[in-house]
Each structure stands twice: as structure tokens, then as C-alpha cells.
């Protein structure tokens, strides 16, 4: 069957507990619906379709839990991820400091070419700010990743951030595709690009018993 999309990107949200990952992902919309049944079970991931440069892109976005005990979860967490949103809370300096730890974790366990972006969430809470925009920009520059301040509460910059990350993944992929085409003579590009499954992913099966379900 013909694929109805051009790209498929798996994205993850990571960061300390309480920074707002679940809110960033799961409440894009004003008229959020209040189902006790659904909020009791919790949401695993969402599929969203966006368009970039006339191409149809499917995003599969996974929420993760920031609690300490989950940090030992390694490769299974990151398996197949092509983009990672590193989220901290601008009113919580510790969550900002821990971004470095999360990046180390990613470097250790995720594919080496995974695209990253840092989000300073809760930017609506001006009076309790502990991390300045400049501080965060500097850290992002050190790691060579983009940074944006978001508010899951009022939706500020949230969709834009996902678009930016998707755009960067696409650009990277198109560049690789180009290189492959230049090196390998003529062939038509595959319709769907799925993330590189590097050697690091092999360990993933051992961790399959990990459950996303223990959060709520």
C-alpha cells in the first residue's frame, strides 16, 4: 500500500520531574477535554501530522517520566528516537542544571545523530524565574542546540518548537540523502525515511520490560 506521508519522526520529551513535559505535549489545545477515565490511565504518545516544504511529516511524540528512578532506563527509552526535546523549568534552577545530565545520558544511550532542542518551560511564571534567558542560550550554544522558552499553560512557542525540531531533523535527513545520492549514482529516493537504527539499539530488546505506565 502506498504510504500517505513522506517522513516519520519519532520524538521524545525528557527532563526532570515537574518541568511540564506532559503538559507541553498533551495540552496543545484550549478546549481540552476533562475525562477522568483517560487522565487516570494516562497517555503514551501522540501522532501528529504536519507539513513542511510541501512534505507530509508524521510525528510520533512520546512523553517520558522525569523521576529519578527512571533515569536508569537507558537504551529502550531512546530507541529509534530522531529528535529529543530537553525540557527544564525556568522557575527551577536545578532542573536547568540537570539538562547537562540529561544530555550526557542521551550521548551515552541515544543514536549519535539524534537532533536535540532545549525548552525553558513555564515562561509565563515571570515572578518566580530562576534561570535567565541568557543563561539558557549560553548553555544551548555550548552544546550546539537550539533553545526556546515555552509555556504549556498559554501555549506560547510550543507548536513552533516542535516545528523547529522537525525541520532540523528533516534538513539533516535531506542532507544525508543528498550525500548518498551523490556518492551512490542514480536511484530514486525512498518514500519514507525512518531513523537510523545504529549499533547502540541492539541492546534495546533486553530492556523491553520497561513500562511507561507507572507515572500517573
Amino acid at each position, binding site marked *: 500500500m502506498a504510504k500517505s506521508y513522506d517522513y516519520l519522526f519519532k520524538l521524545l520529551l525528557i527532563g526532570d520531574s515537574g518541568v511540564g513535559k506532559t503538559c507541553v505535549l498533551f495540552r496543545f489545545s484550549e*478546549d481540552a477535554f476533562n475525562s477522568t*477515565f*483517560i487522565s487516570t490511565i494516562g497517555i503514551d504518545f501522540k501522532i501528529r501530522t504536519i507539513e513542511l516544504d510541501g512534505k507530509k511529516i508524521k510525528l510520533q511524540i512520546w512523553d517520558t517520566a522525569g523521576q529519578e528512578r527512571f533515569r536508569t532506563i537507558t537504551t529502550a527509552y531512546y530507541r529509534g528516537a530522531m529528535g529529543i526535546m530537553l525540557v527544564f523549568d525556568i522557575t527551577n534552577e536545578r532542573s536547568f542544571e540537570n539538562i547537562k545530565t540529561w544530555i550526557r545520558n542521551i550521548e551515552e544511550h541515544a543514536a549519535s545523530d539524534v537532533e536535540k532542542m532545549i525548552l525553558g518551560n513555564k515562561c509565563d511564571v515571570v515572578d518566580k524565574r530562576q534561570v535567565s534567558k541568557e543563561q539558557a542560550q549560553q548553555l544551548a550554544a555550548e552544546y550546539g542546540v537550539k533553545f526556546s522558552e515555552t509555556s504549556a499553560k498559554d501555549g506560547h512557542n510550543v507548536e513552533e518548537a516542535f516545528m523547529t525540531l522537525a525541520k532540523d531533523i528533516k534538513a539533516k535527513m535531506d542532507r544525508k540523502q543528498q550525500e548518498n545520492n551523490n556518492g551512490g549514482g542514480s536511484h530514486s529516493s525512498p518514500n519514507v525515511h525512518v531513523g537510523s537504527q545504529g549499533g547502540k539499539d541492539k541492546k534495546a530488546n533486553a530492556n523491553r520490560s520497561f513500562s511507561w505506565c507507572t507515572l500517573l
Partner: protein
Amino acid sequence: MATNDNQEVQSASDSNHQLTADGKNAQMIICPNCRCKILLKKTAELVNTDIFLPYMRVKKNTSNQESGQVDGEQLSQFWKVDNMFTFENVGFTKTVGSSIKYLICADCEIGPIGWHDINDKTTFLIATQRIHYSD
């Protein structure tokens, strides 16, 4: 609006489905609450199968909830797709019981609007009674 108890969002005019000649959805399938696009036209197949889905609107503090029981209904008609990436926008709940995931609107999170058994990787069902249509 959110105070309706045990009542599904339903309006007769845009909840009647139309089929293409080959049994696919002739119209776009949208969220009954926020009109978010769930499936484009001609992407899903109409199937009859009996599946229990919890109600979308459930009264808080009902006695049933205390006893751990979920209020719901048996539904028998669904739109089926065989690949989760056929969906334009959708959310998947965490796994309930041993293998069931419920489907919800990706935007407003109304649900369950559908059902998936993780043991069957090619069946994703959306209840015809829980969605609306649009051209």
C-alpha cells in the same frame, strides 16, 4: 459543557457516515468535540465487531468508580485502519490490562474514541458513534 453525565457527544446531522464504492470513508473523520482531523477521506474501512468502550463523559464520584468498575457500552461499528501512521492526529493511552490501548483526540483528548490491541499490530479501530464527519 463538561457537566453532561454519561452522554456521548452526538449530533445527527454530521454523524451519519457515507461510504465510497470500495467501502472506505467518503468523508474526513474529525473529533466530535474540537473538529481536529483524525482520518482523511478514503483511509479507513468500515467493519462490524463488538467492542466495549468506556463512556467518554463519566460523572466523577460515581459509585461505580469506587468499586473500580468502568461505565461504558458495547459498540459494534468501527472504522479500521491497519497502520497507526494512517492517522492524521490521534493519541494512544498507556496500555490497560494486558494489551489494550484506547485512542483519543490528539488535541482535546476526548475519548476513548477508539481501540487497539497491541497484540494485533494491523488493527486500529475508531468507533463510528464517537466521531463526526467533515468534507
